[in-house]
C-alpha cells in the first residue's frame, strides 16, 4: 500500500505542475499573444488605429508595462489560490460571479459523465458478447454515426423535436443562475442527452476494443472452461481490465465533454459557465476567461487523476510499472 500512496503523491505533484503549465498557457493566450492583455482587448486588425503613445498609456494604466515573468507569477499565484481578480469593466470580483455558473456546469458535466459511462459500459458489454454479430455491428455503426453529428445541430434538433414539438421538456431553460440545484438538475436532462449523442461513441469504441481483447484472454478462457455463466465472465472478469484503455483516455474525454457543453449550454440557454465564457469572450473580460479556462483544465486534471487511481485499483500490474504517458 505505501507504493500506492507514493504513486498518488507523485500524481498529485505532477498534477500541480500540469496546472502550472496550464496557467502559463492561459496567461500566454490571453495576455501575451500577440502582444499583451491590451492588444487582446483590441482585435489585431484594429491595432493600426492606435498611436504608440495611446497604447503605452493604456498599458501602464493596466499594469502591463511590467515584465512578463512578473505578471505571469501574479496570474499564476492568483489562479492557484482561486483568487480570480476583478472584472475589467465594473471591477466586481470574478469568483462570486462565476461560482454558480461553474457549479451548474459541473452538474451538467457530472450527470453527462455518469450517464455516458452507464451507456458506454452497457453498450460495450452488449456488443462484446458476440463480436461481429448483428448487435455489435448495429451498435458500432450507430455510435460511429452519432459521433459524426455536430453537437450544435443535435442540440438544436433536440430542442425542436423534444421541447417544441413533443413538449417533453422546456425549450428554453429559464431557471436563474442561482436556482436551487435540484431545479438545475431537472433542467439538465435534455442537454445531457444531447451531449451523450456525440460523446458516447469514442469511449464506447475504446471499451468495446478492451472487452473483445479481454474476452479472448487466457484467464477468461479458463473461467469459461470452469463453466461460469457468460454475464459473470463479462462483468466480473473481463470488464475491469477492459475499462483500462477507456480510463486512459479520460483527459481527452472530459476535455471534449467540456468543449461540447459550451455549445450545448448556448443552445439550451443553460445557466452555466459556457454562457459565462461566451459573454466574457465578447466583452473581453480577460480575468473571467482566465478563471473559466483554468477551472476547466482543473476539472480535466482532477478527472484524469481519479482515472489514474482507478486504474491502479483495477489493475495490480500497473502499480509496478512507472506511468508517465
Amino acid at each position, binding site marked *: 500500500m505505501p507504493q500506492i500512496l507514493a504513486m498518488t503523491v507523485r500524481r498529485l505533484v*505532477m498534477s500541480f*505542475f*500540469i*496546472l*502550472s*503549465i*496550464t496557467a*502559463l*498557457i*492561459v496567461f500566454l*493566450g*490571453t495576455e501575451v*499573444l*500577440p502582444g499583451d492583455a491590451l*492588444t*487582446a482587448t483590441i*482585435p*489585431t*486588425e484594429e491595432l493600426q488605429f492606435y498611436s504608440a503613445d495611446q497604447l503605452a498609456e493604456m498599458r501602464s494604466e493596466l499594469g502591463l508595462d511590467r515584465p512578463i515573468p512578473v505578471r505571469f507569477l501574479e496570474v499564476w499565484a492568483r489562479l492557484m489560490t482561486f483568487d480570480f481578480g476583478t472584472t475589467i469593466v465594473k471591477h466586481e470580483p470574478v469568483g462570486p460571479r462565476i461560482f454558480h455558473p461553474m457549479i451548474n456546469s459541473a452538474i451538467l458535466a457530472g450527470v453527462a459523465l455518469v450517464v455516458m459511462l452507464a451507456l458506454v459500459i452497457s453498450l460495450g458489454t452488449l456488443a462484446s458478447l458476440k463480436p461481429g454479430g448483428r448487435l455489435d455491428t448495429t451498435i458500432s*455503426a450507430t455510435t*460511429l454515426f452519432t*459521433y*459524426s*453529428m*455536430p*453537437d*450544435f*445541430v443535435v442540440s*438544436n434538433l433536440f430542442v*425542436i423535436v423534444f421541447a417544441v414539438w413533443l413538449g417533453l421538456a422546456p425549450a428554453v431553460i429559464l431557471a436563474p443562475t442561482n436556482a436551487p440545484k435540484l431545479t438545475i438538475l431537472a433542467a439538465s436532462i435534455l442537454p445531457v442527452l444531447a451531449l451523450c449523442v456525440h460523446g458516447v461513441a469514442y469511449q464506447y*469504441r*475504446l471499451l*468495446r*476494443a*478492451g472487452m473483445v*481483447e479481454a474476452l479472448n484472454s487466457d484467464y477468461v478462457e479458463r473461467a469459461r472452461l470452469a463453466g461460469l455463466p457468460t454475464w459473470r465472465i463479462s462483468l466480473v472478469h473481463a470488464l475491469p481490465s477492459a475499462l483500462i*484503455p477507456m480510463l*486512459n*483516455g479520460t*483527459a*481527452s474525454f472530459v*476535455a*471534449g465533454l*467540456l*468543449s461540447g457543453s*459550451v*455549445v450545448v449550454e*448556448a443552445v439550451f440557454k443553460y445557466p452555466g459557465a459556457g454562457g459565462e465564457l*461566451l459573454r466574457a*469572450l465578447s466583452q473581453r473580460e480577460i480575468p473571467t*476567461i482566465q478563471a473559466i*479556462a483554468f477551472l*476547466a*483544465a*482543473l476539472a*480535466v*486534471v482532477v478527472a*484524469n487523476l481519479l482515472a489514474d487511481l482507478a486504474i491502479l485499483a483495477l489493475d495490480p500490474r500497473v502499480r509496478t510499472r512507472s506511468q*508517465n*504517458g
Partner: protein
Amino acid sequence: MADIPVSTPLRRSLGWLRSRRLRRALSEPATLMGLILVVAHLLLALLAPLLAPYDTSALVGAPLQHPSWEFLMGTDQIGRDYFSRIIAGGRIALMVSFLGIAIAVVSGTVLGIIAGYIGGRTDEIIMRIVDAMMAIPDLILIAILILALGTGPGALIPVVAVVYTWGVVRVIRAKTISLSTLDFVRSAELRGETRLAVMVREILPNLIGLLGVELAVRVSSAVLRISALSFLGLGISQPTPDWGLMVQEAMGVIFTDPWFLLLPAIMLSSLIIGVNFMVDGLSRAFGITTAELG
C-alpha cells in the same frame, strides 16, 4: 499503454496502397462509402468556384426562394444563391483545418518520436506540456487564441496547429515506444546507427499508416470545432459561406423552411461521417487499434 501492434513493420514500402488489405477494407460497404464521401467532399471543396453558378456573396434574387432551375437550392435570407454557398461552405473550414492539422501532425510527429524514443527527462518534459495543453478543452483554447489573433484564415491555421499538435504527440509517442522494443529497431541500434537515423529511417516509416489516420480524424474534429465556433458567432463570419454559420442562420427560419438547416447540416455531417467510416475501415484493415488513436 499502447496495444502491441498487430501489424508487421512496413519498412519504407508504400506498396500497401495496392495491397490486399486495402482491397479487403474497400470491399466493406461502410468503408467504401466513407472513402467516396471524403473524396467527393475534397473535390467539391477544390472545385466549388468552378461549379458554383453564382458568386457566393452576390445578391442574385429575392430572399428565401424555394429551389428552382434558376436557383437549385433556392436563395438565402438576403437573396444569395444557396447552392453556390452550400458547395463552398466547407472550403474555408476544411482548408484551415487541413493546413493546420498538417502542421500539427508534422510537429506532433517530431515531438512524439523524440519523446518516445529518447525517453527520460525529454519525454517527461514533453509529456507534461502535452498533458497541460490537452487539459484545456480545445473549444476554449481555440476561442482564447481567436480572441488574440482574429478569425481570418491566416490566424485560424496556426491556431488549429497549436491546439491539435499535442494529441498527435501522445499517439505517436505511444506507438514509438512500442516500436522501439521490436527487433528491427534493436538491430539498427546494434548496427551502430545514430539515434536520429533510427528515428527517421526505422521508426518514422512505420508510422505512416497511423499518421494518415491521425490526419483524417483530427481534420474532421477540427472542422467540427470551427463550425461550432462559427455557429456561436466566434469563428468565420459573414459573408464567407460556412456550414456552421449557415446552420446558425437557418435556425431563424427552421419552422417554415427546414431544408435551409438540413442542407448545411447534411453537408457537414456527411463529411464527418465519411472521414470516420473511412478511417474506421482502413485502420481495422491495417491493424491500427482504437486504443492507439487515444
